[in-house]
């Protein structure tokens, strides 16, 4: 019998995995909370990296690889990063062939701009809505496969758990329809979680509201490891907002934007001052800490507020419109000022998770048959992601995981069709009961308020600057929230399109995942990339050049440590005030 493939997630990673499977003759059941075209990948603004070296700068895939590993403070396994960087130019050409309207040079070739953490023009872009354009191209190809009968879409479904057989092998999923609220089980020989990041654990972030990390948090409770959950990227430049922290892409600095504040009544370009070699294009963790220091330690935020300026006003308006139009519009629409005329006010915001489901080099979690790709996995970015590397890792992740699912499924001795119905019924029943319990909760805790509180605690204690005693307090408070969760009262008990019940279920998974972030952070007593502890200000390779692997237990996360693959580039100190030393 033909193997059955389930892809959960229609962002770039899930769509690319789907295309790869269809192209190789398979068919896919594709699940997504929203129409796949509306997935969070649409938010990506600045661009996608690939060392095509069109500007005579001597760029190479090796240099891209070295920048990425160095940028990630040597925590990423090097083999997959190397392969990703080697595939990058081909991926950009493929996207071009699929019709992505990349910005072009006068010769009609692809244009590239600069991004943080590199000295090369390596970032291909479509105005300032690159993610949107990339996902539209993939969405169109998947629609083509849908018309050809190879893809069956389940849009508007929440995948709520994995079905594991007696041997602990993944045999399918349970999902709930967001409209009819029907809970159903689906058989699959290989399941790919391409479900994106967990930004909502922090309440407000630059991520979309469906980025809860809920299903990752769920399969973690079913035995999947989380890799480096503590590695959360805080982006230096976002617009503070009541409902969302909206990103101002790094491409603003890539195109010449400067960050400053007043000191002694005069503009102080502090990034250029502190990091002469890279200036405004230092990696995100570095810029974020500098802004934090300027605002909180030196109390030099603009008007005493925790904001600094991101300034584009010295660049001519026509260039800005062509290269950054999309993000300038966001600032204008949501703040009302014209960034061509006045500097933008920005502050750092939680943005991306380098950590995620632990996977092997073939994108499989420690649960056989359960794969992960895209932002949901932990594979490519170590302790800090370079800008424009994650559209790349999402697409590349799909290119690896799709074929890997097929190879795995074709090698199975028993297919999901041979597994007794009782296995599927048991997981279905378990989820139906859990949901029924939620419907009947009549306490006085509102799930949305509980979530708000989780976000505030996470943001305060586990972001830019981390102190052990605060993280400890956070971990304890998460347990308090877990107790209060038992007293939830759902504001809606209807049996049709009930968003409260879905949200409440996700909230529990966010609490579990959040706790793993806290415990991972607590136990990493060093500073590396985005993870910064003033009490341990140095990187400590001897003790912590290791992947955190968090395993769920009823008493909280249990940590294990895994050696990092550093076979190509020997770890060296990471500095951005001076030029990077050559690695080869």
């Amino acid at each position, binding site marked *: 019998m033909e193997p059955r493939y389930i892809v959960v997630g229609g962002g770039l990673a899930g769509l690319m995995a789907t295309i790869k499977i269809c192209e190789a003759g398979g068919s896919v059941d594709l699940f997504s909370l929203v129409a796949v075209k509306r997935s969070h990948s649409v938010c990506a603004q600045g661009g996608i990296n690939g060392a095509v070296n069109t500007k005579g700068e001597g760029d190479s895939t090796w240099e891209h690889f070295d920048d990425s590993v160095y940028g990630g403070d040597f925590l990423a396994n090097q083999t997959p990063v190397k392969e990703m960087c080697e595939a990058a130019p081909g991926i950009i050409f493929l996207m071009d062939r699929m*019709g992505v309207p990349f910005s072009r040079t006068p010769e009609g070739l692809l244009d590239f701009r600069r991004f943080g953490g590199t000295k090369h023009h390596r970032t291909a872009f479509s105005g300032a809505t690159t993610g949107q354009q990339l996902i539209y191209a993939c969405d169109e190809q998947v629609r083509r496969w849908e018309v050809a009968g190879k893809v069956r879409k389940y849009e508007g479904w929440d995948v709520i758990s994995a079905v594991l057989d007696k041997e602990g092998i993944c045999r399918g999923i349970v999902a709930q329809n967001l409209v009819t609220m029907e809970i159903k089980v689906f058989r699959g020989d290989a399941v790919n979680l391409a479900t994106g990041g967990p930004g909502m654990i922090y309440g407000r972030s630059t991520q979309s509201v469906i980025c809860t990390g809920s299903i990752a948090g769920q399969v973690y409770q079913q035995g999947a490891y989380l890799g480096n959950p503590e590695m959360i990227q805080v982006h230096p430049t976002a617009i503070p907002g009541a409902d969302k922290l*909206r990103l101002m892409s790094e491409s603003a600095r890539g195109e010449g934007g400067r960050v400053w504040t007043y000191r002694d009544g005069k503009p102080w370009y502090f990034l250029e001052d502190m990091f002469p070699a890279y200036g405004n294009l230092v990696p995100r963790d570095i810029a974020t800490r500098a802004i934090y220091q300027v605002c909180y330690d030196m109390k030099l935020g603009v008007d005493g507020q925790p904001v600094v300026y991101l300034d584009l006003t010295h660049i001519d308006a026509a260039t800005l419109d062509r290269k950054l139009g999309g993000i300038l519009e966001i600032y204008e629409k949501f703040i009302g000022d014209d960034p061509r005329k006045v500097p933008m006010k920005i502050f750092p915001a939680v943005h991306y998770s380098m950590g995620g489901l632990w996977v092997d080099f073939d994108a499989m979690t420690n649960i056989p048959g359960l794969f992960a790709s895209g932002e949901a996995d932990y594979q490519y970015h170590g302790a800090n992601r370079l800008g424009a590397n994650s559209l790349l890792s999402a697409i590349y992740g799909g290119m690896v995981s799709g074929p890997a699912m097929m190879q795995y499924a074709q090698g199975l001795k028993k297919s999901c069709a041979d597994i007794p119905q009782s296995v599927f019924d048991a997981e279905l029943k378990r989820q139906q009961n859990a949901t029924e319990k939620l419907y009947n909760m009549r306490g006085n805790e509102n799930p949305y308020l509980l979530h708000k509180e989780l976000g505030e605690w996470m943001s305060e204690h586990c972001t830019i600057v981390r102190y052990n005693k605060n993280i400890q307090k956070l971990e304890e408070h998460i347990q308090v929230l877990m107790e209060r969760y038992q007293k939830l009262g759902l504001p809606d008990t209807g049996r049709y*399109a009930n968003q409260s019940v879905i949200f409440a279920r996700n909230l529990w998974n966010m609490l579990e995942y959040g706790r793993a972030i806290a415990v991972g952070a607590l136990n990493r007593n060093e500073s590396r990339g985005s993870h910064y502890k003033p009490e341990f200000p140095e990187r400590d390779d001897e003790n912590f050049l290791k992947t955190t692997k968090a395993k769920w237990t009823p008493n909280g996360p249990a940590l294990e440590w895994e050696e990092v693959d550093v076979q190509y580039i020997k770890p060296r100190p990471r500095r951005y005030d001076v030029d990077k030393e050559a690695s080869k």
Partner: protein
Amino acid sequence: MAEVIRLRVKRQDGPGAAPYWEEFDIKYRANLNVIAMLQDIQQNPVNAKGQKTTPVVWGCNCLEEICGECAMVINGTPRQACSALVDKLTKPITVEPLSKFTIIRDLYIDRAKLFNALKKVNAWIPIDGTYDLGQGPKQPPAKADWMYKLSQCMTCGCCAESCPNYSDKSDFIGPAAISQVRLFMNHPTGQLHRDELVDNIMGNGGIADCGKSQNCVRVCPKEIPLTTSLADMNREALKRWFSRGLRF
């Protein structure tokens, strides 16, 4: 006393159920948008009469006007709720679901029709495969910029909502899908398939159903030149009609 904003929401418990209005008072703060108001109701589901009620059901995702999910009719105009800032809206603020689609519940709607239209017109580049086939075709930069504009369509449905010819009673696929055909037939690879692409909008529900009301271009949140696309495609269809005639 903090300023309070009145929000009137057109609610409906399910498809076919009778709609009703419910009003809410939301505390004002700087940069408040319609989404944040609806989020407030989730956290405190009490209406303006002080009665407990259920949170309003609606769809949203990116909150930066790029995913197209939160389209609704706000003060009579179809638009995205995330970019609807309270400071710029007349009060009280009314919100209603897009009316041209199946209403699932409250403001939450089913827009499968829009995606089916994209299937019908084959809105994609027919690549040979995702294998390493080298660079894509060269393109004039000005044309790439122009295609980028058309390519920003989020399939939100605002154009369809505003179009008098788009309804349950007609098969008209709407302005968005037709504009996509214009995008694809101008791509160097799509150009190789111009005729088939134009054929796709010449039958029932195609370009001939456009009544030229020009409403679509006025409401498009991405300012896509939809009426130019429609006029262009009308011309292409005419050319194609003549050339097909000559070949018989």
